[in-house]
């Protein structure tokens, strides 16, 4: 009985082992196919997400450019008002000074040095006006459709021109103050 049972048990065990290993191999192949399908699905999802992110980035960049252009327009409007005021005021003051110096010269006073300062101030005022006009037009050139680099270049150029104009306006002020000071010294 024992002799009969042992081979049967052994044979069954052998069959079981073989059967399970075959199923395991089949199972592994199925798993590999499923995993590869899932991987493909995931990759598709990632690609789609990447495209969406790029579209969003582009949208944000465009919005950024529109806002920058608006800021540049704000600067242009402010500078137009300020530079216009400086130019108007200095022109009026230079006119009055020229009249005053003429009167003093008529009275026999030597106004040469003061006159030189006044002429220099006039020349600088013209230069300041030119830089100011260029700065304004450069700020106005900053367009919402321009790319970031172009906008930056224009903004930088406009900013430099503004500083040039400011420097010239400040120099005009210094020269005019010096001319009046000299005139006062001559007068007393």
């Amino acid at each position, binding site marked *: 009985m024992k002799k009969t049972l042992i081979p049967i048990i052994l044979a069954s065990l052998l069959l079981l082992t073989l059967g399970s290993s075959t199923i395991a191999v089949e199972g592994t192949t199925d798993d590999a196919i499923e995993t590869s399908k*899932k991987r493909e699905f995931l990759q598709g999802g990632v690609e789609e*997400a*990447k495209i969406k*992110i790029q579209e969003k980035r582009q949208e944000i960049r465009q919005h950024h450019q529109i806002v920058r252009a608006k800021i540049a327009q704000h600067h242009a409007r*402010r*500078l137009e008002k300020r530079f216009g*005021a400086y130019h108007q005021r200095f022109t009026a003051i230079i006119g009055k000074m020229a009249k005053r110096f003429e009167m003093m010269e008529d009275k026999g006073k030597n106004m040469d040095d003061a006159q030189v300062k006044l002429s220099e101030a006039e020349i600088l005022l013209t230069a300041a006006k030119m830089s100011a006009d260029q700065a304004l037009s450069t700020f106005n050139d900053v367009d919402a459709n321009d790319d970031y680099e172009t906008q930056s270049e224009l903004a930088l150029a406009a*900013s430099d021109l503004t500083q040039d104009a400011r420097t010239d306006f400040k120099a005009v*002020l210094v020269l*005019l103050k010096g001319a009046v000071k000299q005139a006062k010294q001559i007068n007393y």
Partner: protein
Amino acid sequence: MKLKKISLLTFTLVAASLLFTACTNKNQPATQQDNIPAVQNLENQEQNLGNQDAKQNGTTEKKLSPTITVSEDHSLDVLEKELKETEIFEEDFGDLED
């Protein structure tokens, strides 16, 4: 065996979903956090600029109005006073450097 198969499938699904979540989370919030505040910041700057303009125009206008109108008086004292009152304002374009 079936149990083994099920557990393998569950493991794959969990790993895949974790991988997917990691990939999408890594990209999306980064752009939202990095870029959207940048735009909002610019928009705020734009609004502030408008408010600043309005505010500054109040004070600047006050300073600029005597600047625009110059008296007819061309005495040296008046000229000196008018030049003393003249102010060349600072200009800042930091908001365009973003």
